[in-house]
């Protein structure tokens, strides 16, 4: 067993920032990550970091834009914290050597971005995320913070009280991918989950293969509610074969979208008569899919993004990296042919419910970054708002876990008096745990109660070391079970089925029938998963085993997305419902929360906090 004060799970932007903050606050900090830190998906971010840095700009404007962008589903305390802290934390990056793009006078450049009332997106070329990630990893190296890289976190070690709010998180169980060894990690002060997005729940995503929602799933099964999971952002221009993102810059420079018949459908079919290709992400994504669904898609799959008319010179000058992307990942030369594009899953607005200090309802358990939902993005994230979220809330979580006093949070977490219970939605299938034990056969972390659980006193284990030992034992048994079996189904098949269902039915367009179908398929996947086995018999670098674990997490996460999509009967932000074409503020100014509840998902709601420090944000029609 390894022991540290603070254990950070995940080493993307959020995890690294949290670790640095915890270390600076004096805690003995360690990072456990399934990838080496510089491999994290934060490195893929291109656009930039929103921060009100310049004179003339103001954090309040940033907060206002963010709230409006969220379609009034962001919580004001979180939104204001983000806007207030972003400038300082961005400058901190500058002082750590981040190579920001510069103005003539040597100051950092800022550029305009969708939905912003002031050009406040700070950037470093078209590789902002890469630099952010590397600069922060460098600081981790400088501070000598211990990194357990290529250690896959399988589960949390929490205590077992019936009410999640009484539980305590003592650490995690992880396995060393290289050697296959399973070990407990004891966290004396806190565990911070920073495991990134759940993009792999969809089969077409701009997210990395490693974005499997592990943190979501393990927190969820330990009793923390997942919040607003139905809000998924789809980016209109990703390459069809890989999902690699083609930046909005192409359309910004004048790139045009065509359907199979060569029509400029954004105008000719009236999707956006004013903004055309430059309409907001959700509008363009829906337009593209409508074209495809109505039989006007190229190869019935995608549309064309054409930039040839911009001329070679302009393209080489401003969009050179796009040429490389199209060439390297799609085999298409953007100078001579149009590029195929289609909408791809891009970002999850929802996530593990936390307060503005990053804390969840389980004491000692924190979440930050894309896996968390504070919530700042509400129904729709503005471009350039995810990276500041990583550094602002990563830092806060780290400091809080290390014992710094950040004040009483205004955002409440967990099931409590302030929530609204509404379980009258009709579900097509029973969600939640399958086969593995009955209701009370499921331990707090979602695993089955096993022989090793039996304690002489029959009561709840409160001692940390004991909780960790039990959790380790449970994972060892699970692994043995998966490895010993040599017939059944392989995870890849289940994952494929799950991803296809999500993309078919819980995509840009959502109908009641479709989402229900998805829930049924997810249920099937869950049942099939009972027979899953790991074919690779080796303990050395067994990615088969790791992916089998990830697939299980994806099932849980996909289910919450579909459940959320089914119960939210309105059209807000990125969530579009065929039967409900307007935003319903009277009924739906509230967050969807889903908690595992011992294997039987429980759905409830918490009102959005629109009162900020000085002003209240009045919901307005979101138009640009």
């Amino acid at each position, binding site marked *: 067993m390894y022991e540290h004060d603070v254990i950070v799970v995940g080493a993307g932007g959020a995890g690294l920032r949290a670790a640095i903050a915890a270390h600076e606050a004096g805690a003995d900090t360690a990072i456990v990550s399934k990838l080496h830190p510089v*491999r994290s998906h934060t490195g893929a971010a291109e656009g930039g970091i929103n921060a009100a840095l310049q004179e003339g700009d103001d954090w309040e404007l940033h907060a206002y834009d963010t709230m409006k962008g969220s379609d009034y589903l962001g919580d004001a305390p979180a939104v204001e914290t983000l806007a207030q802290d972003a400038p300082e934390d961005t400058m901190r990056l500058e002082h750590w050597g981040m190579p920001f793009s510069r103005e003539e006078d040597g100051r950092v450049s800022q550029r305009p971005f969708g939905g912003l009332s002031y050009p406040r997106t700070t950037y470093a070329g078209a590789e902002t995320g890469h630099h952010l990630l590397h600069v922060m990893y460098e600081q981790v190296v400088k501070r000598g913070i211990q990194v357990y890289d290529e250690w896959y976190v399988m589960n949390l070690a929490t205590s077992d009280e019936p009410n999640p709010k009484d539980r305590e998180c003592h650490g995690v169980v992880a396995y060393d991918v290289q050697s296959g060894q399973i070990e407990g990690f004891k966290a004396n002060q806190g565990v911070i989950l920073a495991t990134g997005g759940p993009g792999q729940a969809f089969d077409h995503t701009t997210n990395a293969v490693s974005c499997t929602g592990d943190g979501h799933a393990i927190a969820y099964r330990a009793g923390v509610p997942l919040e607003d999971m139905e809000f998924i952002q789809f980016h209109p221009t990703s390459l069809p074969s890989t999902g690699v993102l083609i930046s909005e810059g192409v359309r910004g420079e004048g790139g045009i979208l065509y359907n199979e018949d060569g029509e400029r459908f954004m105008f000719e079919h009236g999707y956006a008569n004013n903004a055309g290709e430059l309409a907001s992400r959700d509008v363009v994504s829906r337009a593209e899919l409508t074209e495809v669904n109505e039989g006007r898609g190229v190869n019935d799959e995608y549309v064309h993004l054409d930039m040839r008319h911009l001329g070679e010179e302009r393209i080489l000058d401003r969009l050179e990296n796009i040429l490389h992307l199209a060439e390297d*990942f799609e085999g298409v030369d953007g100078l001579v042919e149009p590029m195929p594009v289609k909408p791809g899953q891009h970002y999850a607005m929802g996530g593990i419910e936390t307060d503005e200090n990053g804390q969840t309802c389980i004491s000692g358990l924190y979440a930050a970054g894309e896996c968390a939902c504070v919530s700042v993005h509400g129904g729709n994230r503005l471009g350039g708002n995810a990276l500041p979220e990583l550094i602002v809330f990563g830092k806060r979580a780290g400091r809080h876990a290390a014992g710094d006093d950040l004040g009483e949070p205004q955002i409440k977490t967990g099931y409590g008096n302030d929530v609204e219970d509404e379980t009258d939605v009709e579900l097509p299938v029973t969600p939640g745990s399958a086969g593995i034990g009955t209701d009370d056969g499921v331990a707090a972390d979602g695993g089955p109660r096993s022989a090793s659980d039996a304690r002489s006193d029959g009561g709840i284990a409160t001692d940390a070391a004991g909780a960790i030992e039990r959790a380790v034992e449970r994972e060892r048994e699970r692994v043995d079970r998966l490895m010993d079996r040599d017939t059944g189904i392989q995870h890849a098949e289940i994952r494929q089925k799950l991803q296809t269902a999500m993309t078919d039915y819980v995509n840009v367009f959502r109908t009641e029938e479709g989402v229900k179908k998805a829930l049924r398929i997810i249920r099937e996947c869950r049942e099939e998963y009972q027979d899953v086995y790991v074919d690779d018999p080796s303990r050395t670098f067994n990615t088969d085993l790791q992916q089998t674990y990830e697939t299980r997490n994806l099932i849980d996460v996909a289910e919450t997305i579909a459940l959320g999509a089914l119960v939210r009967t309105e059209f807000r932000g990125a969530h579009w419902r065929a039967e409900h074409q307007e935003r319903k503020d009277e009924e739906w100014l509230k967050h969807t929360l889903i908690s595992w509840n011992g294997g039987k998902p429980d759905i409830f709601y918490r009102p959005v906090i629109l009162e900020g420090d000085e002003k209240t944000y009045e919901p307005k029609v979101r138009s640009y």
Partner: protein
Amino acid sequence: MSTQQPEPESQEAPTDPEFQGAESSVDEAERSGGDIDQTAADPTDLEGETVLIKVFRYDPEVEAKQEPRFDDFHVPFTKGMTALDAVIYARDQYDSSLTFRHSCRQAVCGSDAFFINGKQRLACKTQIAELEQPIRIEPLPHQEVVKDLVVDMDHFYDQMHAVEPYFQNEETPAIEDLEEQRQSRENREKIKMSTRCIWCGACMSSCNIAAGDNEYLGPAAINKAYRFAMDDREPEEIKEHRLRIVEQEHGVWRCQTQFSCTEVCPKDIPLTEHIQELKREAVKKNLKFW
């Protein structure tokens, strides 16, 4: 874990060249036929065909793989298919124990540098259509193989860490005076290429000097040092300190300008140029004191 090394000479190589994929590919192709788009509008020569990949296999724990061998996989070609797509297909459809690192699929995470048809390349950035068949996919040379295409990167990381890869200036100021440091556009331009490194290790693997001299810092680490040494935001003393690190015996002088690092770098970083510039900087700095 056991520590005995496999002894390649003393064991007979189980020759099983036409492993798995060869036969199974027929029904697999059928099974997956439905969701593979074989009728793309813009067919290339390979459209609708299968490509043959030969993948290096090794696993210390599996008897048949203790002696490295190559397995053949037949993968149905689709337009835009990359070498990474091909191995993913082989893994998901034929042999789930096929092991390799990968994550971003877009050349930013640096996990999937392999030795493909005799050259260090990022698999996700390598179009199948541009390779000669059969395609030979091996782990990076000059690194210990952990399993299949996975190599031990620890040494690479050690070398990267050895150049103090972090910005050094006076203590970070307090919040109130977090005034930004100015940096000229020219200076940012100068370090721009060097900041693009994704730690893939391709350069190090291609360098024969690094292969011969384990202590050689290697092109990636020297480039990292360059990135900081040339950044005007760091004070002059720190720059001298950095030059002192790279001019040690196993530093820049080891480079024999073989250029293979520059040729394989997927981020097109002019590594040799940076190394040479550091050599000159080091000489210049030392000459001053004569």
